[in-house]
């Protein structure tokens, strides 16, 4: 009888009653790279993804490319992109707020990641001709980030990694910098405890946690739109920081761009962006311009507009242009709002018509003749207005007048857990944790103190994910 009961029990005990060598929390690029590397390192691995299966992979679902150093042109990348050049790009965008040792280590490892990731089933696509000229520095995933994730999941599954969806980790048992167990909440089994020999935390940042954002941004955060997954609420990050892990980074630093104000609150992804700023002007709710729209080539300055709009009253702004340029930028998800006159447009936007007319008249009067070329820093500029538009300034005068309303769109946050070159978390006393590793967004702040260069999010996840998995397996098998 006893044996029957135990057999029956055995039959219904969830897979996680088994003790695993490595527990990975999260389900995105960083988590999967860690899981695969740990499994290849000989460990038994369980991945707990808080989201349901469709939403697996957090923000990684929305990505498109990854930045890796390489010494020579490849089938998918033009020209070399040396370690030094990558480092200089990183130094420039972060203004020096980066951990040089870690960053250089990441850049060196990124060379090998280009191939490693392909060995895990991910496919690259030949570089794009179109809007973003990143064919030298960035490799594009064939089919986008979700295709990339699907490939990683298939490989992990084939290798024997166990994955559970809808499995949110709600608590961590940590003693003296040593991970013992995690509490996981599942829709059917309620809350259970899972122990494992090592932990990899790859559960993303806290961008989807508006309450947490408000602690640092105030009420302005109510007007932020979150571009990615609603599941990155920073719960694991908060637990780790609360249990002795050293923190890195500034909670207000994040990757934020201006996206269409009509986008959904969460998960609108890449298609809500606008790249029309250089072709027009940007005004706030008082119909005033507030920043040089022609400061730099758009992909380079793309990431500053989120912060700029966040600093405006009610966190709203309007990109205004005219009908002569509508085909100069990527087609947009939401159509532009149109008016036959500036006043009509202002009315539709809820702006003061006289104020908008003044701003446009002043701007038009300040435009100096030049030769327009949006691929270089051209000589079309304004004179005698503040702020100036230093390049690509052309008069806005051909009806219909058009506008996109924009709000700050938060991509991901930089506050994170401090790690070393082994992706091992450092405790507040500076000592490395015995068995806790972190990868991806949750430790991005080690590399990104501020600023951003396209494709680095995935580099951080893949490089540190692979290291974390390898090291976690090594620890578990010792």
């Amino acid at each position, binding site marked *: 009888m006893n044996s029957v009961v135990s057999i029956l029990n055995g039959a219904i005990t969830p897979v996680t009653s088994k003790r695993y060598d490595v527990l990975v929390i999260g389900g995105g690029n960083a988590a999967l790279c860690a899981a695969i590397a740990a499994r290849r390192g000989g460990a038994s691995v369980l991945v707990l993804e808080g989201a349901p299966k*469709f939403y697996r992979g957090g923000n990684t*679902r*929305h990505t*498109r490319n990854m930045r890796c150093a390489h010494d020579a042109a490849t089938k998918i990348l033009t020209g070399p992109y040396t370690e030094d050049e990558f480092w200089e790009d990183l130094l420039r965008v972060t203004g020096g707020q980066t951990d040089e040792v870690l960053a250089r280590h990441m850049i060196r490892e990124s060379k090998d990641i280009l191939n490693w990731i392909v060995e895990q089933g991910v*496919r690259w*696509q*030949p570089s*794009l001709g*179109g809007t973003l000229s990143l064919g030298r520095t960035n490799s*594009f*995933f*064939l*089919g*986008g*980030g*979700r*295709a990339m994730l*699907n*490939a990683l999941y*298939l490989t992990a599954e084939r290798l024997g990694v166990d994955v559970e969806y809808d499995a949110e980790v709600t608590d961590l048992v940590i003693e003296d910098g040593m991970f013992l167990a995690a509490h996981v909440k599942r829709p059917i089994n309620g809350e259970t405890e899972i122990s494992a020999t090592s932990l990899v935390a790859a559960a993303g940042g806290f961008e989807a946690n508006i309450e947490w954002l408000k602690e640092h941004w105030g009420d302005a955060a109510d007007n932020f739109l979150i571009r990615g997954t609603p599941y990155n609420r920073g719960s694991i990050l908060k637990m780790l920081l609360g249990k002795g892990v050293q923190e890195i980074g500034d909670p207000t630093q994040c990757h934020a761009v201006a996206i269409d104000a009509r986008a*959904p609150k969460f*998960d609108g*992804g*890449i*298609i809500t962006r606008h790249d029309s700023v250089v072709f027009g002007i940007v005004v706030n709710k008082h119909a005033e311009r507030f920043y040089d729209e022609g400061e730099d080539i758009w992909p380079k300055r793309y990431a500053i507009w989120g912060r700029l709009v966040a600093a405006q009253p009610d966190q709203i702004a309007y990109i205004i242009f005219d009908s002569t340029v509508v*085909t100069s930028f*990527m*087609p*947009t*998800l939401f159509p532009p709002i149109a008016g036959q006159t500036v006043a009509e447009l202002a009315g539709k936007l809820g702006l003061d018509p006289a104020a908008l007319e003044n701003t446009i008249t002043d701007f038009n009067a300040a435009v100096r003749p030049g030769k327009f070329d949006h691929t270089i820093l051209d000589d079309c500029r304004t004179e005698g207005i503040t702020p100036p538009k230093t390049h690509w300034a052309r008069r806005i005068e051909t009806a219909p007048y058009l506008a996109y309303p924009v709000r700050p769109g938060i991509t991901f946050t930089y506050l994170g857990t401090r790690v070393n070159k082994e992706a091992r978390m450092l405790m507040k006393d500076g000592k490395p944790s015995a068995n806790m590793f972190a990868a991806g967004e949750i430790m991005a702040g080690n590399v990104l103190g501020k600023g951003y260069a396209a494709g680095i999010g995935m580099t951080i996840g893949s490089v540190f994910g692979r290291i974390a998995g390898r090291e976690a397996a090594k620890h578990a098998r010792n």
Partner: protein
Amino acid sequence: MHGTKILDEADRLMTVCNSCRYCEGLCAVFPAMEMRRAFSDGDLNYLANLCHSCGACYVDCQFSPPHEFNVNVPKTLAIARAESYAAYAWPRPLSGAFARNGLVISIVAALSMAAFILGFVALNDRTVLFGVHTGPGAFYRLMPHNTMAALFGAALLYAILALVMSVRAFWRDIGDPIGGRADGGSLLQAIRDAGELRYLHGGGVGCFNEDDRPTDRRKLYHHLTFYGFLLCFAATSVATLYHYLLGREAPYPLWDLPVVLGALGGIGLIVGPIGLFVAKMRRAPELLDQERYGMDVGFIAMLFLTGATGMALLILRETAAMGPLLALHLGAVFALFITMPYGKFVHGIYRFLALVRYAKERRAEMIAE
């Protein structure tokens, strides 16, 4: 606003995809879409017929349902595609009826044809029907060759006429100037793309069917079906030439070209359609255009019947079963012919033309760059 609801939805999706473009490496649909900013009915029908329904862009899309953007390109284009067949069908009144109960209509057509032939024979001489006939001309003891040729010739001519009329309407609608022809290079390119089913590969991993794991079986079964069909067609053509040029009458010996081609084709037409049918039964419902299930299955069934009765005839042709089997086989072929312009058969032609148009556009773009 478009002509139909599904074209409105296709337009919405193409607007989403055009601002995303993550899928541009997967197939021809997305690069073709990128060449446009606004989409006419004809543009959407063109894109719909370029899609091979591999499913990759559904499995790879971060906005597929349950996401609120609800992006389901394969299913939407499948419905639009099926509706386009009806929209271009000639003469118009025949199109709708067929699409609704494709399976039933095809089978009924095949059986009634078989009954007709049986009746025809029986009226002449009952003993002939169940008799054993061998040697050249054996088939024609059941039905004189000239009757057979006239009957099938007429059916084929009608099918060709109806198809030509439909194809003209399609080619015009997808935006080629009237009278515009394809250049040799584009034609060759399209023949290659169609011949290898280049875009049924999900961007390289294979075709998606029952779940998010790619398998390439649909491509294999489609190849078997398509090349099986071509081989059977070749067998019939060779036999016709034999008959008129060499005066040699069917049935031919086993080693002879028409039989070899027909047998190989027949195997393809048995294995291929079964594979396609099984794949269709297993296919994830969210990728399928369920309403057109009958039309698709009807066409698969007709091909299978043609292959199966043909093979049975080959094996049993020297027995008393020959008569009824010949009637069944002829019935199936006849039904296949007359239903061609109103069923799934047209997908091959429209897709090929869409590929020609795509090859043309690409070449024009390359020259312009």
